């Protein structure tokens, strides 16, 4: 009764959690520049084969990683069996008329299923701890991330462990034996009971506190233990529900070990304690199902049910941010291992290049908006580096249509006001780059009256580390004689026949005039190909290209600072 009541409460909580999860996912899902029909088309175009194969057989996972597929298979198969035949036996035994938890093959199968789940979970745990292919430390993922990833696994392990302990204590428990005798037999006293006890002590591993040496009959006469009689009594009263437990290959050996201990605990009834613990863990697992890693059991079928977009269709659906798909991510990291621009991450050290990191940020971004401009700008930068090659989506074991997510992420960031990098780089003047300075006014010499004046000389652009500080050293450019060899050799200047911008020698002259800000506002700085021709031909050995590059780095760093400040202002 208690269990049923508790179960109903837990089920209600779980259902409420699921409702909350789904409604929030639906709420956070977004359609950009498209109508609702587009969303519907994207969400409800079903892929039945995908549901079947990927949910039940996990074919995608098999393709991605055989070992992980094996672990998942163990846990999934074992758990489904335990859920259906063991946990829900009151309902399911209608399908097996001969079902009794204590007889074969059910006792063996339960142990087998439990062992499978336990083994699979252990594999998960070992992999979590030892996983080194994507260096989590480099991604600054702290303890929290690791704990979050392992909680569900640990709870399942506790559930399985408590189940096995409960079973073994149950096997060995004398109190349980007495209860069963009382309930299912008319044996009330010596010597028959003693014969049965002796038989059970030998074959069923029950641990009795008192040594069974002799039975005393009603007249007070002692007779030797007769195991043959015990066997006959067992056949009469017990065998229908209890075969010998040796096939319980986990619980039976445990019972032999733990039996005496359980017997000593005596009245405390450790078998009951662990039974309740077992039930408790099951309830905890059920209650937190919608909010734990376990949720991917629901999310993955949802995600795989969506038909993946073919490249020619992707334009039609790129504006759809499908949160249900997003939540199917289990941070397995396969995507980042195959990512085409992984080397970009190695160079730039921006984790937001990696798909599995991007997803996490994107989830937060969809829920909270721009909570940390720095992170969002890194996401923007990382997402801009993505080539949409689709390798991540091809390997994703959850079947998430990742390429669609990346395009939707751009749309989301556009809407939130986080400017893209490449669009401004195309415009390539500092004004457009930052949205702050005003290049036209700069050229006309009004720079000091500008709002949001860009000071790249002092302090600003502190992020641009590793720069040699050439633009702050007069000796680096003061020897320029304006001979124009650099501009003559410059392929960018050659392209600019209309002379719409400064040549390198004019940028050097701006530095000599102390106008570093104006210099960094020139298109030359942003168009420079760093071919180093200017530096190569300079008769004064001025590091022209290095200076142009430094102006660009500082300008970029300052532009990022300004954008961050603006985003802070907007969101705050």
């Amino acid at each position, binding site marked *: 009764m208690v269990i049923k009541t508790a179960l109903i409460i837990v089920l209600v909580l779980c259902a409420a959690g699921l409702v909350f999860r789904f409604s929030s996912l639906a709420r956070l899902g977004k359609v950009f520049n498209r109508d609702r029909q587009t969303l519907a088309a994207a969400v409800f175009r079903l892929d039945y084969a995908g549901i079947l194969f990927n949910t039940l057989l996990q074919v995608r996972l098999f393709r991605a990683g055989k070992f992980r597929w094996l672990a998942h298979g163990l846990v999934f198969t074992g758990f489904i069996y335990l859920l259906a035949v063991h946990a829900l036996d009151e309902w399911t035994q209608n399908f097996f008329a001969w079902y009794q938890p204590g007889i074969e093959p059910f006792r063996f199968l339960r142990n087998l299923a439990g062992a499978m789940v336990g083994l699979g979970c252990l594999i998960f745990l070992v992999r979590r701890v030892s996983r080194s292919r994507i260096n989590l430390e480099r991604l600054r993922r702290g303890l929290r991330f690791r704990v979050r990833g392992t909680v569900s696994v640990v709870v399942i392990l506790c559930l399985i462990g408590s189940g096995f302990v409960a079973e073994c204590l149950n096997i060995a428990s004398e109190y349980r034996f007495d209860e069963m005798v009382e309930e299912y037999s008319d044996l009330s006293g010596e010597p028959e009971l003693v014969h049965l006890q002796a038989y059970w002590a030998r074959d069923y591993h029950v641990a009795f506190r008192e040594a069974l040496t002799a039975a005393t009959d009603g007249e007070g006469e002692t007779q030797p233990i007769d195991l043959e009689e015990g066997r006959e009594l067992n056949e009469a009263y017990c065998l229908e529900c209890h075969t010998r437990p040796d096939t319980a290959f986990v619980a039976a050996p445990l019972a032999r070990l733990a039996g005496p201990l359980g017997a000593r605990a005596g009245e405390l009834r450790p078998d009951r304690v662990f039974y309740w613990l077992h039930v408790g863990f099951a309830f905890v697992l059920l209650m937190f199902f919608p909010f734990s890693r376990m949720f991917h059991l629901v999310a993955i079928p949802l995600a795989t049910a969506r038909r993946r977009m073919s490249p020619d269709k992707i334009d039609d659906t790129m504006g759809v941010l499908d949160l249900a798909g997003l939540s199917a991510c289990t941070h397995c990291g396969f995507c980042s291992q195959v990512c085409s621009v992984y080397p970009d991450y190695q160079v730039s050290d921006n984790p937001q290049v990696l798909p599995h990191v991007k997803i996490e940020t994107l989830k937060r971004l969809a829920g909270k908006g721009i909570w940390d401009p720095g992170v969002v700008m890194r996401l923007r930068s990382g997402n801009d580096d993505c080539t949409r090659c689709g390798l991540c989506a091809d390997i994703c074991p959850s079947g998430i249509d990742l390429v669609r997510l990346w395009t939707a992420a751009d749309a989301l960031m556009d809407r939130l006001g986080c400017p893209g990098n490449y669009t401004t780089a195309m415009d390539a003047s500092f004004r457009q780059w930052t949205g702050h300075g005003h290049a036209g006014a700069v050229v006309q010499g009004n720079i000091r009256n500008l709002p949001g004046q860009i000071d790249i000389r002092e302090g600003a652009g502190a992020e641009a580390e590793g720069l040699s500080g050439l633009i702050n050293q007069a000796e680096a450019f003061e020897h320029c*004689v304006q*001979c*124009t*060899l650099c*501009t*003559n*050799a410059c392929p960018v*200047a*050659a392209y600019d*026949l*209309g*002379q719409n911008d400064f*040549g390198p020698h004019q940028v050097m002259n701006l530095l000599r005039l102390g106008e570093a800000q104006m210099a960094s506002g020139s298109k030359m700085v942003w168009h420079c190909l760093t071919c180093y021709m200017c*530096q*190569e*031909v*300079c*008769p004064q*050995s001025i*590091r022209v290209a290095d200076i142009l590059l430094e102006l660009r780095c500082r300008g970029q760093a300052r532009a990022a600072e300004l954008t961050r400040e603006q985003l802070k202002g907007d969101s705050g």
Partner: protein
Amino acid sequence: MNKDMHCDLLVIGAGLAGMSAAVRAAQKGLDTVVAGNPSSLVFASGLMDYLGVYPAGSSTCLDSPLEGRDALVRDFPGHAYAAAGHENILECFAFIRNILDQSGLAYKTAEKEGNNLRVITAMGTIKPSFMVPETMMEGCRALARGSRDTTLAVAGIRGLQGFSASQVAEGVSGLFSETVPIRTELPGITTVVPPQILAEHMEDPVVLDAFAGQVAPRARHAGLLGIPAVCGIDNSQSLVKGLSDRLGIPVFEIPCSPPSIPGLRLKKAFERSLGRSGVRLLSNTRMQEPVFDGERFTLTGRLDPDAIRVHARGVVLATGRFFGHGLHARRERIVETVFRLDVTQPLGRHLWHDKEFLALAGHRINRAGIDTDAVFRPLDARGRPVYPHLYVAGGLLAHNDWLRLKSGAGVSLVSAMTAVDHFTASAGGGHGH
């Protein structure tokens, strides 16, 4: 990272003197390294002078270098020409002409051997020179044979700074029966364009065709056409010839102010020659910290963040004057920047310059430089060579006001080649390591 290079001869400086020394050394079979900035040649006009004016400030051009040579040697016994005979110098010009010819850049001298040519400049002036690019030759020929019955057309290009067809036409109007300035506009060029970029543009047949199309109607009655020296970079000779064929009149290039395309062509021709002969070029590298161990020089070139150590048995120092960083003017005196050699110079700063800033005869500082023996080895205080195989060539030499005397190429060539020849003869060819 440090790198070591071993060679027979290290040439420091990649101007005309340095490049000439390098090609000469390569021809002599020496293992040669050149360290310097070949782009300094882009500041050269591309004309090669022997001796065009003497004395400095004289307003007449010498018909032949020989007319002023004796006086020059008499007045400045330490001048490079004092040590080198006329035939010797002619031979140097012939040598370099041959080298450049092999690199696809043709030079011409006057038809009357040993005479100067007269060249029309972008200033509208006449400048004496000894050897000029083939593309400039038609103008010199016209002036040499007498041009008073010829009409000269001068075509300017919009966007090319420092060249005004009107100015040239006006300047030389007395030498021709008529001078016609023509303005042209190249497709796609609406404003000022660096000359090198313009020259590359001119290599485009469409552009050259447009140019010819605009020039043709106005040059119809002219007997000669002058154009700024931006007619292509690598194929200037065929472009000028093609233009001449199409217009039916001789066409010649007029040298402009730097950056100079004929200088750029010279640079590229030298680089091709060096490449062919296996000379190693350390481009834009300044050699410093010289060490001499009694047999071998070791100098370090800094190429941030690397350093290259070059070990050589002989060194030709051709670093030029102030602009080339061969000389450096300190507050009280002028120093030589690599070896700290003695610089022959006015005794005090107050003597560096004449009171008149634009003095036609120049300033005494213009003649400051390194004094050498007859084979161009710098001398110590006692008048002995500082090192047996250290030579100085080109602008760095003392008594050498090449700008005013129009003698830059002659001094550079004769000093560079004499030095290399002496090194070859005295230190022997072949590999010394």
